Every structure is written in C-alpha cells, then in structure tokens.
C-alpha cells in the first residue's frame, strides 16, 4: 500500500533516497540538485521512488524544471492533493 502523503513523509523518503543514491554533501530542502550532483537520470529514479512509495506519478515535464529538493517535496504533496 502507498504511504500517506504528508510533507514530512515525502521529505523523509526523498532525503533518504537521495542519500542512498550518493548525493554529494548535505541533503536539505534548500539544496539544489546541481549542488547534490543529482543528474537527470537520478531524477527519473527519484520519480520511480515517489511512484512506488506514494502512488504519485511524476512525468518528465513535472521534474524537468525542479531546482531544489524542497520544490520536489512540494510538488509531490501538491500532486497528491
């Protein structure tokens, strides 16, 4: 079953996933994907994590303009609403 979508649950899952993926430096809401050395393929993988965990589908157009981790969290929460 999908996990309930709250800012906290999404944040904790995404932070953990980014660390597991080997993000460079500290993962915070403000960190940009560029600083974290997260590339476009990593974002595809992150979208898959979101779909598997929360049942929220993110398309290419959704993720292509994301700059920071916080924006990604907010997007997932908004899409689930």
């Amino acid at each position: 079953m999908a996990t309930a979508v709250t800012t906290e649950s999404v944040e904790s899952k995404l932070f953990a996933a980014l660390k597991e993926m080997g993000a460079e430096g500290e993962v915070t809401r403000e960190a940009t994907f560029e600083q974290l050395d997260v590339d476009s393929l990593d974002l595809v993988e992150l979208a898959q994590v979101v779909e598997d965990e929360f049942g929220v589908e993110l398309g290419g157009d959704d993720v292509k303009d994301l700059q920071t981790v916080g924006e990604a969290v907010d997007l997932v929460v908004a899409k689930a609403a």
Partner: protein
Amino acid sequence: MAERGNGGGAKPETAERPRGCALVTGASRGIGAASARALAREGWPTVVNYRSDASGADRVAAEIADAGGRALALQADVSDPDRVKGLFASAEAELGPVLCLVNNAGMRADGLSPQITDEQWRAVLDANLDGAFHTTRAALGGMLRARFGRIVNIASVVGPRANPGQANYAASKAGLIGMTRTVAAEVARRGVTVNAVAPGLVETKLTEDVAGNGLLERIPARRAGTPEEVAACVRFLASTDAAYVTGTTLTVDGGMSA
C-alpha cells in the same frame, strides 16, 4: 552521480542478480515461447505475455512449470499503453519487478509500398515499435531502482537491410534498433543493458508462407534457424555474463548478412 567511483557508472556486476522477473512479450509461440523457456531455465520467474493465443501461452507456462520453473501467462496487446501499464502492475504484484524484458511481440502485413494501407502501416508500427517503447518505458523505472536490468529487443535483419514488400516491417525494425542504441546509452551507467537480436529466417508461424521461395539458397548455412537458436542469444544477453554488452545488435541468421 560522481561518488560511485569507476567513472560514475555502476560497479562491474558479480554473478548475483537482484530478485525480480522476466517478461517476454508475444510468448505464446515461436521465438517468444523459446525465449521464455530459456529464461525460466536460467531461474527467472517468467511472464508469458500474449495478445490472443491464450491456449498457446498457457501451454508455454505449463511447460515451464513442468520443468520446475515459475511462469505466469498474462494477456495484453502491447500496442495499447494502458494495457501495458496493467500488464506490468499484474506482473510486479505476482513476481516482483520486471528486471528482464524481451520485446518479441511482432507481426507482418506485407505489400509493396504503394499498396500498403494505412491500417497495415499502423498495425505493424504499433505492435513492433510502439509496443516495445511502451514496455521499455514501463520497465526502466524499476530497473534503475534495482541498478540492474536487461532489455532485449527482437529486431530483424530486415530493417538495416532492404526487403521489398516489407516497408512497414523494415521501418519498425530499423526504428527498434535505433531505440535500442539510444536507450542503452541513457541507462548504461545504472547497470541496465539494452540490446537487440536480429534473426534472419527462423521457422515459425510468422514465416510458414515464405520458406519455399528459393530463400534457403541465400543463406550460407542452407537452412532456416530455430526459435531455440534465437533464444540462446536472448539468454546470453540477459545473463550477468553480458553486463558489458549494451547498445548492440546480435545477428543470428546463418550468415545471410555476412
């Protein structure tokens, strides 16, 4: 990401492969059935997909089970993206993530190009090319997460080379090879390989009407291939031994295009 050392790519694989299943499209007979049997023998729980031939698919699944393997027959027309979503959802619920995908479903609708109808053109492109895209798209997320994946596309020697009367088929297979190479380059650093197998003339229902026609004279081996000979190539490309083989096309044609 830079951290992984080794140029940012996935580490060289060991003989271990993560838990998951194989899915072979159009596996109710012919090359797809032989591929499903071969992958099941390698220990893959295997989804035997079919479009209309339920009894054929059930027979293949039963053969796999009789040989001690695990198989599940699942109906879906791969040209329909929604049906492909459903196919993956069922496969994953029953057998785990699809970590090996064989895009084998295919058809012909021959005619000289001035005579190919819109319907014949679309049907062949939809099944042979769009179908493989739909399944590839559905499979890649899980493969990326697993840092392991094998996609094998059954193309043809027709496509890279001409075959009068098959403009639609040739376009679909050349397109499939183009897709193979580009997707391979996109995902190689995650331990996912994407390759094509290009058979020449293989004895199946698809070719039962063409084997006569003096075609054997053009094959150096002087015989048609068997589905099992194509499946052996699929099995290799799907194996951990083939971890460094990606974006390529393995021709299996008895020397026809040598």
